[in-house]
């Protein structure tokens, strides 16, 4: 089957009847117990997408709670410093949840309310997903259970404290590598056992098809805003535009790109930056840029770091939010169709990028978007002045203050 993206249809809807993109990525590889809950959720979500009152409510919270649109700013000092392409940032982290996770959390909580569920559960790596779901669940009167690997609890203490402050229960996950991959597994297990009362929220565009769709549907808000902002700023979509985004599970990247997928790639280039891990280590969390094999993890078929037997491989990244062995089926599809390109940045490159950006500009990207900044910084000097490099600054660095202080010797709040 030839892989081709259709124009005029959101990418999240370009799957076949088995829930697979290009007949190859995604799907519903789940225990039988979850088939019915997933089918119920699919029905409800497709109904709500056509429901005007639901959309009105969604937009109300996006505007009045998130504060849409988040700013698009030119990074003048960084542009001058690098002397090449113009650098711009969409500061998505300027919202009460300080990350793009807020969009899907709002949509999921609205769905949970309509489904009559009183509990929501989710996985979290960096704690951004957990923090946002805790915050939004509290607003909507839902009880939240957050599954988080013990290793991540240690390195992202700041977010754990916030989650608890919002009244969420944080459940430490001690199995396996004690990071995001295990948190997702444990959250799915909890849903298997409690699917009648609990609405599960997956923190990215991963998992069974409907979760990929809800997540992508929600973060698409980012590129809807960006499109308007670019036209306001330049009078049109700039001729040489490159959109750079970090990719872990891939929800922020999909949301940053969704409105631009139909453009010719010479016009709007999409560049995803995965976590390359430490410079000194062979381990990474970058399945796309390392040509990992197709595998099945957490209900979906996608490129996945694994051994020959199919055991899921160990990953490594300083940024908990990118530290995941697989990636969204949407990005596998974008890669194989050639629409998006994927590269990786190391821990050290991300830290250096953070250092430079926060020194020169009034923004403070977390370690995740710092990976995208790292690639932008290395590209910019080689490009013409009429090239627009736009980076999604999808998370704020406050959660990383301890890691940054340890690695760089300082952190300015």
């Amino acid at each position: 089957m030839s892989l081709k993206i259709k124009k005029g249809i959101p990418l999240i809807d370009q799957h076949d009847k088995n829930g697979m993109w290009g007949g190859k990525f995604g799907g519903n590889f789940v225990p039988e117990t979850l088939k019915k809950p997933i089918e119920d959720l699919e029905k409800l979500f497709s109904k709500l997408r056509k429901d005007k009152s639901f959309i009105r409510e969604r937009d109300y919270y996006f505007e009045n709670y998130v504060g849409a649109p988040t700013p698009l700013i030119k990074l003048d000092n960084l542009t001058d410093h690098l002397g090449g392409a113009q650098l711009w940032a969409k500061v998505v982290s300027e919202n009460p949840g300080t990350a793009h996770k807020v969009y899907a959390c709002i949509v999921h909580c609205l769905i949970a309310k309509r489904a009559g569920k009183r509990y929501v559960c989710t996985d979290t790596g960096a704690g951004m997903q957990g923090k946002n779901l805790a915050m939004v669940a509290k607003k909507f009167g839902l009880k939240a259970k957050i599954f988080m690997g013990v290793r991540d609890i240690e390195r992202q203490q700041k977010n754990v404290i916030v989650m608890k402050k919002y009244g969420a229960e944080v459940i430490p996950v001690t199995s396996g590598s004690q990071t995001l991959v295990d948190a997702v597994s444990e959250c799915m297990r909890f849903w298997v056992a409690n699917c009648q009362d609990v609405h599960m929220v997956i923190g990215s565009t991963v998992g069974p098809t409907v979760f990929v769709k809800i997540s992508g549907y929600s973060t698409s808000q980012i590129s809807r805003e960006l499109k308007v902002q670019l036209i306001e700023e330049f009078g049109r979509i700039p001729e040489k535009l490159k959109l750079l985004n970090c990719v872990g599970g891939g929800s922020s990247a999909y949301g940053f790109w969704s409105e631009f997928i139909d453009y010719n790639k010479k016009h709007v280039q999409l560049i995803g930056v995965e976590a390359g891990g430490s410079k000194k280590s062979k381990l990474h969390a970058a399945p796309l840029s390392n040509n990992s094999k197709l595998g099945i993890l957490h209900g979906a078929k996608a490129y996945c770091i694994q051994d020959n037997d199919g055991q899921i491989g160990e990953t490594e990244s300083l940024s908990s939010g990118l530290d995941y062995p697989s990636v969204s089926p949407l990005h596998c599809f974008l890669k194989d169709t050639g629409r998006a390109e994927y590269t990786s940045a190391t821990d050290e490159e991300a830290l250096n990028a953070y250092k430079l950006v926060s020194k020169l500009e009034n923004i403070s990207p977390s370690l995740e978007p710092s990976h995208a900044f790292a690639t932008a910084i290395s590209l910019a000097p080689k490009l013409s002045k009429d090239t627009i490099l736009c980076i999604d600054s999808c998370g704020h660095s406050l959660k990383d203050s301890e890691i940054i202080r340890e690695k760089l010797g300082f952190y300015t709040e």
Partner: protein
Amino acid sequence: MKSEIQLTFENCKKEKRPVLLTYTVASDPNKKKSLQIINSIAKHADIIELGFPHSTPVGDGGQIQTSSNRAIKNGFKMRDAFQIVNKFKKIYKNKPVILMGYYNMIYQYGENNFLKECKKAGVSGIICVDLPWPENKNFAKKCKKKLINFIQLLAPTTTKDRMKQIIKASHDMVYYISMLSTTGGKLKISPRKILDSYKKIKRINSKKNLVIGFGITDKTIKSLKSADGLVVGSLLCKTITNSLKMRQNPVTKLDKVVYNLKNKIL
């Protein structure tokens, strides 16, 4: 020709008792011992389920996770599972062995290669936790061609229409998940309620051999003995973990536990 699995059910029916299925993990606690374990418990068990451990078992609770991790840490490779079955079948020629695990392992091995190895080793059936119907249609067909049972699962959340379709697609044996839980959870509904659901499923097609699994222990097994078959897994994995902790031989410990389970359903 009737399958080994079908014959086992027919024989137990004649003896007016349910089929006892045991689940242990291949290479837990190591390759040699896991073979010794199934060689020993097969004196009491009617069907041996052998798990091929996966690093990310989303359907399993703590006990089976612990066993799986132990096996992987001790160097488990897929070919070990086939070798264990092969050796077991040399002693127990007619005792069915069912391999159970997650789809990524089968996918990476290649479906056809996997089935070829199963056939060579003498595997009678396959349970794939995360390959539900209709996702399993193709693979189940391939199994049938090789005269290997693909065992379909039913859950308390499965609708009646879906059950009918799944049972229609099933081979000799169907597995009913007793409750909303991962493996090894505490039985949170009464055995009577489980049997009510069981009977409803049997009414769809009384000829299909229906086994109940999840949450079955030495304490609950007796109350479910009217079923066609009963699966015990987590209790056995837990027994291995405990005997390792106490520096006891898991082989003799498991032998005792399974002997006890069998006595409760005679």
